[in-house]
Structure formats: structure tokens, C-alpha cells
């Protein structure tokens, strides 16, 4: 730990320390054995109860002992006490958990016990005021949990507990105040999944009940989260919140606007992994959700950009390389020739194939040269498909794979699929003509998409 003075021990001091530890260990083991034996014997005496207190102070993670303690309370002690006495006992147990939580803020069993205690609070103090005790606890609980969150604003146990407390309070607090609270926590440090999550929960609820104008407040949220994205694009919590805001991407205008904004951020920060990953996700969402109103050219260009981004991601985030390769294969559509190599030294070669009998209107093709600028996607009449493949000018790739040609077709009727296969096979000899051979060829259909067929040709240069 920082700032703690390192203490140098002499040999004698070390031996003494070890001895003390041994003694402590022995005491703990003895205590454990005794408490477990009493549990076995269903001992529910006050004495047994006190021993659990002692043991839990030493090891609050021993959940068996918490269970045993609760058994003693509910089976033996509570039935013999008045509500007021029970209330006092619960107050004691709550302070026990407070003390332990201060030392161990992330131990489930302590939190569990706290939930349990609050559920046991009897009605009172009077028949006229049955919620009096409870309300007193709840007010205090909110204070406790805020203290816990001040100490560690990212303690998800505390956030969970906060939600529980807010939900259970006999007199509810306004959701608006929770919105303010989460904003304060986010402003103090926005790298906080829990605070964003809490905010999303509150907003959902307020939108659902109409307490907040969704369109307007959504814009404010986009503004907030964009500020965080630009401040620290490496912070994942922010991107996850942004993704929650976008949701299923039904609003095309918002989706396009956000894509543009992230693109601007990427221009500023060209190595930002989260920018690139989100762009792939949102661009594919755009095509997936709104493909019917996009031109073929536009859809084609978007997917081309996604593939380019994914190949950059392989480089900036090599730990997840395979994931990005899988993602680039999982793209929905279109004919793509993609450079998977660097350095980019390409010359243009044209493969021409005549395709007959497809009954289809168009093939779409696009080229992704490795240079920064994209060439205009070509939309070519179906009977005269031109696939441009970029090949390494040296004609040999160290890794073998020099080009991937992906052919995808708008296939409105599944019955046309076999024909398309035939048609595209025409390309194969052309690749061979270039001194390349097709080493791998896969057909598959992506069921949920309207573009149903695609083909991969990994061409290995020879």
C-alpha cells in the first residue's frame, strides 16, 4: 500500500510476530470448531449467539455462521421477546454489520444479513404508527449507503443496496433526486458502471411513467455521455451507457448523428478501440435496421467501412484479434474485396465474369483499397459482374492470404440461391488466371437478414 511505512523486523521481532499469529490461528480454529459443533447440536442459547458474534468479527465471510446466527434469532430469541426488544436486537445486528462493512465493504454475507435484519423489523412502535420503526431505519439506511458510496463510489454492493432501500422505503423519495445523485457521482468520476447503470434504471422508470420528457432528456443524456466519451474514450462504462441510449437503433436520425459524432472523435483519436468497435456496431445496426431505406451504395459503403475498422481493431487490440476476425466474417452483406495485409502495396487487377441466368437486377460490388480514401462503390448490372480484386504487387504474401473476396447478393427468393452459386463460381477461374488459387470457399446464409447469401474466397497467391 502507498504511504504506509515499511517496518523492518529484527529476527526476534519476526519470531514473536509469527508466534502471535500462531496463537491467533489456534484461537480461531478452536472457536470455529466450537461454533460448528453447537450448530450441529442445534444449540440456540444466548451463549451460542454470542459466539457467532465473536467468530463473525474475525471472519465475516463465513456464511454458515451467518445462517446459524439468523436461525438462533428467528427460532429461539425472537419468539420470546416483545416487538420493542426485537427492534433493539435488530438495531444491534445492524450496527454489527455496519462495523464489519466498514472493514469489508464487498462481502456479500454482511450485506445479506443487513437485508435480512431490515425485513425483520416488527411493526411499531405503536399500533397507530406501525411504520415508525421502519421509516426510522430506512432514513438511516440511505445515509449509511451514501457513506459507503462516498468511501467507494464503485461498490456495486452498495449501489444494489441503495436501489433496494429506495424501493422499500415506506415514503418514497423522488426519482428526480436520484437522477441528481447519480449525476453528482458521475461528475466526480465517470468511470463508474454502477452510477451509469443506476441512472439508466431511474431514467427508464421516469420515461415509462411520463415523469420526464423522453425526447428532451434523452438529448441531455447524449450530451452528457458524449462529453465523457470525448474526455476519456478509453473508458468502457461510458460506451456501454451510450449503447443503452441508442437501444435498438430505431431512430435513424439519432443513429446517424451519433455515428457522425463518434467518427469525429475517432478522427481526433485514431487509435481509440471503443470508437472503432462502436462504429462497427452502430453502422451495422444502421444497415440492419434501416437497410430498406438506404441505397445499396450506402449500405455497401457502410459495411466496407466496418471491415476496414475491424482490420484496424485487430492491430490496436491484438488480444481480441480473433473476435474482430469473427466480426468481420459475420457482417451482413455485399461484395467486398478487402486488403488484409500491410504494408499496403497494391495494384489493381480486374476480374471480369459474365453471369447469366440469375434473374437478378444487380450485383453490388465495392472495393476497399488499403489507402485511406474509399473508392466509390460500384453497382454493376448483374449480367456483367465486375469484381475488382486488389492484389499485392509482388504477387506473394508472406502470410499466404492476400485477398478476401466476399460476394453477397440481394436474394429475395431463397430459390435463387443455387443459381447464384453457379454464377459466382465463374469468378474462380479468373482468380486462377492471376496466378492465385482459391484455397477456401464457403457459402452460408444469414437467416435473419434480407441479404441471404454470401461467399468467401480466400485466395492464396501462388
Amino acid at each position, binding site marked *: 500500500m502507498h504511504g504506509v511505512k515499511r517496518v523492518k523486523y529484527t529476527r526476534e521481532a519476526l519470531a514473536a510476530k509469527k508466534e502471535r499469529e500462531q496463537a491467533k490461528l489456534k484461537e480461531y480454529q478452536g472457536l470455529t470448531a466450537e461454533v460448528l459443533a453447537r450448530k450441529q447440536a442445534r444449540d440456540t442459547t444466548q451463549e451460542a449467539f454470542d459466539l457467532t458474534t465473536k467468530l463473525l468479527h474475525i471472519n465475516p465471510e463465513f456464511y454458515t455462521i451467518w445462517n446459524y446466527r439468523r436461525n438462533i434469532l428467528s427460532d429461539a430469541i425472537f419468539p420470546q421477546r416483545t416487538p420493542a426488544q426485537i427492534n433493539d436486537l435488530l438495531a444491534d445486528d445492524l450496527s454489527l454489520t455496519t462495523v464489519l462493512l466498514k472493514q469489508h465493504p464487498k462481502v456479500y454475507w454482511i450485506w445479506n444479513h443487513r437485508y435480512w435484519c431490515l425485513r425483520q423489523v416488527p411493526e411499531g412502535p405503536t399500533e397507530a404508527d406501525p411504520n415508525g420503526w421502519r421509516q426510522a431505519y430506512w*432514513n438511516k439506511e*440511505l*445515509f449509511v449507503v451514501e457513506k459507503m458510496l462516498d468511501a467507494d463510489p464503485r461498490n456495486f454492493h452498495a449501489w444494489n443496496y441503495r436501489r433496494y432501500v429506495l424501493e422499500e422505503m415506506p415514503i418514497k*423519495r*423522488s*426519482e*428526480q*433526486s436520484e*437522477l*441528481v*445523485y447519480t449525476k*453528482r457521482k458521475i*461528475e*466526480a*468520476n*465517470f468511470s463508474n458502471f454502477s452510477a451509469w447503470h443506476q441512472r439508466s434504471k431511474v431514467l427508464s422508470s*421516469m420515461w415509462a411513467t*411520463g*415523469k*420526464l*420528457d423522453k425526447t*428532451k*432528456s434523452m438529448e*441531455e443524456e447524449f450530451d452528457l455521455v*458524449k*462529453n*465523457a466519451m*470525448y*474526455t*476519456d*474514450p478509453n473508458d468502457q462504462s461510458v460506451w456501454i451507457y451510450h449503447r443503452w441510449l441508442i437501444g435498438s437503433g430505431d431512430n435513424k436520425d439519432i443513429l446517424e448523428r451519433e455515428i457522425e*459524432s463518434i467518427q*469525429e*472523435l475517432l478522427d*481526433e*483519436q485514431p487509435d481509440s478501440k471503443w470508437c472503432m468497435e462502436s462504429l462497427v456496431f452502430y453502422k451495422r445496426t444502421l444497415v440492419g435496421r434501416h437497410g430498406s431505406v438506404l441505397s445499396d451504395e450506402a449500405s455497401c459503403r457502410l459495411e466496407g467501412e466496418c471491415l476496414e475498422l475491424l482490420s484496424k481493431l485487430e492491430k490496436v487490440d491484438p488480444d481480441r484479434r480473433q473476435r474482430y476476425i469473427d466480426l468481420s466474417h459475420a457482417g451482413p452483406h455485399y461484395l467486398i474485396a478487402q486488403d488484409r495485409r500491410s504494408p499496403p502495396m497494391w495494384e489493381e487487377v480486374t476480374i471480369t465474369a459474365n453471369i447469366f441466368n440469375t434473374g437478378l437486377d444487380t450485383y453490388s460490388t465495392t472495393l476497399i483499397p488499403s489507402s485511406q480514401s474509399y473508392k466509390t462503390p460500384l453497382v454493376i448490372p448483374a449480367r456483367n459482374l465486375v469484381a475488382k480484386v486488389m492484389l499485392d504487387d509482388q504477387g506473394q504474401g508472406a502470410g499466404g492470404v492476400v485477398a478476401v473476396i466476399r460476394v453477397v447478393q440481394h436474394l429475395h427468393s431463397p430459390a435463387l440461391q443455387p443459381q447464384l452459386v453457379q454464377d459466382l463460381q465463374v469468378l474462380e477461374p479468373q482468380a486462377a488466371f492471376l496466378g492465385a488459387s482459391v484455397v477456401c470457399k464457403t457459402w452460408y446464409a444469414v437467416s435473419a437478414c434480407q441479404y441471404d447469401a454470401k461467399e468467401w474466397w480466400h485466395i492464396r497467391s501462388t
Partner: protein
Amino acid sequence: MDFDVVVLGTGLAESIAAAALSKAGFKVAHVDNNQYYGGDEASLTLDELAQWADARATDSEDKPTSEYLARQRARYTSITRSSTLPPQSRQYAVSLAPSIVPSLGSHIDSLIASGVSRYGSFKLLEKVAIYDRPGYVQSVPGSKEDVFKSKALSLVEKRRLMRFLMFAAGEFEGKKELEGKEQMPFLQYLRETFTLNDKPANAIAYALAFCICANDPTLPALQRIRQYLRSAGRYGASPFLVGHYGGLGETAQGFCRTSAVKGGTYILGRPVSGVKCPSSEANATSTDEKTPVPSARSVHRVELEEFDESLTARVVLSSSDYLPPTSLPGATSSSSSSIPDTVYQVARCIAIIDKPLVFTPTESTDEAPSTATEEPAGEPGEEADQPSTPSYEVDTAVLVFPPNTLPNASTTTAAHLLVTGEGSMSAPKGKWILNISLPLLSSASGPSAEELLRPYLDAALTLTAPPSASSEVQPAEPLFTLFYIHHPASAPSLSDPANADSDIIITPSCTTLLPAIADAATQNAEAMFWKAVRRLKGTREPQKAVPTDDEKGEEVEKDGGDSELDGIESFWPPLDVADVESADDW
């Protein structure tokens, strides 16, 4: 009376060196011409400040009562002050060297290692802001949270600023962004390498790096920013501490106290009438022209007025104001007795006000309140929504005026204003001290200090009538003002070969940069300490210990020269147990 060292002047550097020498077991006599501790860094009550100013004002009729005072008069010029003092004048602690202390740095290290920290207490600086226009300031985005919350920065500016801050907080030496640009003017560097716009670039240069002008070189500015960024969070969100009771003067006194506890002898309020060394005994008084002959074993004789017995010591540590320039070790070569080009003349203003400065961020005016169809219910303990115009009444804060901020004011240098109030125990309740410093690039005599600084003072005072107040509120009228120009002390560099062999060690000139003074004085003190130790032990200057392959596995911390220093291993010896315990309380 025989001593190992006589230290002349109780400025911060001399006081730290005296404490270290006492702790190392040397017999130290520490002398000051003044009745108070701290020399040029003293913290004075208003009465004392007025006396201080009057004694140095050149139009005063009296002849200077000491050589020290004569030299001080040359170094503090253009003095004007209010003729009357406000009531409770003894409840003020005004610093002659306003400073803020970074939470990480050599000064804090020395405070802790020497145990002096328990003699002083500190307050975190609340805020650093940039003066914008009458009534308004610009916030300084110095952390991720500031950048995130800022309404003044565009999204792209936020990204660029954060990229710069991450860079500046890291190990930038040798990185390609810096290569070959170490000496580039910092503002140009920010614009070109990090494509920052004027506003954020100005904020970084003048309010994060505390640059003095646009031409300040890049590397030192980056190093300062890194120190301050890393300082944030050690004692609180702010990187800076402000010493209670006037800051450095109080700290200097704490080091003197430590020296006294370890046996140091203190003599205050005694003018030094002469410093003699044996080889020139016959003709030497401090007023005579003389060239001290460096003699390794000479014993110096320091004579004090109205003090029969002179103080003798092998080594004399001195502020340059106590010795005639010609007696300085480097006097023979004119180039060596100089001021580093990073140390400037400073026009200063000290003003007392009775209304707080209110920092109203200029960007907050167009912040719209959050929209909610449901009004927050007024439950007890309810989170109040933030007010639409957040403004802060500041007690202890810094206000920065980059060049060209004000008409009729400097177009080349930045002024820094430190306000201290009751919170830093430097003023009575409801009163604040404004301490304005404006470095002057040219030493030619120009306008008076008052002419130079009046625009800054007036601008600062507009913040006492904030936009949130009713229109009847008028800006505060200062209860007291003092203006003067502070000329840096001229002293040879310690590493100058001309004084390598001297037993008279002169405190080097020190920067006047608000957050750099304390660390610079501490580093000067440490250099003086080691030089004095070597002279006292009669050893040569040590070479840097470079471990060679042969020495692998052996102790290579000290070379042969240092091993003769009889166990003096560090600037500060380990604290006694008693020291440690009380240090923990702090």
C-alpha cells in the same frame, strides 16, 4: 564564540540549511538583521509590513542603518503604500513571498523528513481560475473531472486537452511528441503539437504551468505541470497547499525552531558589521574592497553591531544581502555573479479587502437548468439540483491574468494573484489579503509598481461585486495597499567553478514563480548544505557514483569522497521516535 557554521539571513533557504546542519550535528549560529524570521520570505503583520516598506522606501530621509538595509533598498524599489493601516493590523500575516506549495516535491519532502511539518499547518488551495472579464472568471480544466464538466470547451477541445494532460502526467522525456521541441515556446508547442486553441492553451500555460510569458520553454513547463498533476489527490483534490499564518515565513521559522532544538544559536535584530577571514584580517571590513583568498582552513569572523564577541566559523552561509558584492566568491569573474534568466524582477501589490472574491465561471451563464416535469419535492435531505450559475466565494485561491487580459496592462507577462483569508489564518474574519505578482521582462526602469499593477487590482476587485449580487453592490475598496518592485538577489551559482573552493556560500537566486518558490528554496538549501558539509569535513566535491560491473552487488551509493563525511548520509537524518509520533498526529 566558535561555531562550525554561521548562517546570515533567515530566509527560507538559509533556515532549511541551518536546520539540516544542526541536525547533522554541526554547531550553527544563525543571524538576522531583522527582528523577525524569514528574510525576503517573511510573513509580517500589517504594522511590520508598513515598517518594512518605510525602511526600504528610497525617499526616506534616514541613511540606511545597515549595509543589509542599503542593499535591500536597492532590491525593493518603487514603494508606495496607503498612509493608514486598517484596524486589527496585528491579526494579519502578509507574505513577502506569496507561494503555493505542491503536495509532491522537495519542499514537502523536507517538511516531513525534518519533522518541521508539525510546527506548521496548511490549507488546501481552493481554486485556480483565470480572470475573464469584470465579474467573471474562467475555470481551469486541470483534471479529468474538470474537463468532463466544463461547459466552455467543445467536445474536440476536450479530447485534445485530455490527450495533453495524459501526456503531461506521464514520462514524456524522450517521447516523439517532445523530441527536438524541449526549448520551443510552450504556447507554440501546445498549439502545434496538441492543436489546442488559444483558450485551453492559455489556461494550460498560465494557470497549470504558471508560465510567465508565451516564450517560456516547453520542457520546464511540462515538468511543472507533471509535478502539479501528480500532486493532486495527495492531501485532497487540489495539488497545492497554502501555509497558515502567511506561508513560507512561518515555515522558515519552523526550520529555525528545529535548528534551535538541535542546538543552533539564534541572534535576531543585529546588523552584521563585518565578515572577516584570517588572510585579510588586516584590512577587511565588509565595507572595504577586498578579495578573499580562498583558504581551505581559514576561520571566518562575523562581527555584529553592539556585540563585543565576534562569531567565528569555518563556513559562512549567507543571503547575498549580508555581504558586499565584492566579497562574494565569484566576484572576480563578472559573469558568475548573475541572475538566472528564469528569475525576473517582479512588480508586487499587497492589498487588504473586506469583501470576498467571488469566482463566477463565465461559461455558467448559458447553462440551462435540467428539465423535469416533476419538481423535486422538498423532502429533508433531498439532493438539491445544482444552481444554474455556480459561483464560489473563495478564501484561499489563485487568480491568473494571462498577458493581454487587461487594457493598460502587460501584453507580455502573466500576473498571478494569491488571495488568502481567515481560512489560511492570515487575515481576521471578513478580511482578505490580495497578493499580486507581475514579472517584468526588462530591468529598465519604467512605470511605477502602482501604475503597473493598479489595472490588475481593479480587475480583481470587480469579482467582489459578482453578477449574482444585486446591482447596488459595489466592488470592494481596498483598506490598505502596498506596491513595490522586487529585484531578485544576485548571487553566483553554487556550481560555479569560481566559488567551488570558497568557505563563503551564498544563497543562489530563487525563482518567484508562485508554486515553485518553496521547492526551489529547498533545493538551494540542500545544495548549500552539502557544500557546507564538504567544506567542513575538508573533502573534495564528490563525483556522481556510477556503478560499474566490478562493483555490482556492492554498496555503490557513496564514493570515496563522501565516505569521509562521517556518517552524514542524507539531507535529513531519520526522525527520532518522538518526532515520528508527533508527525503522525499531523
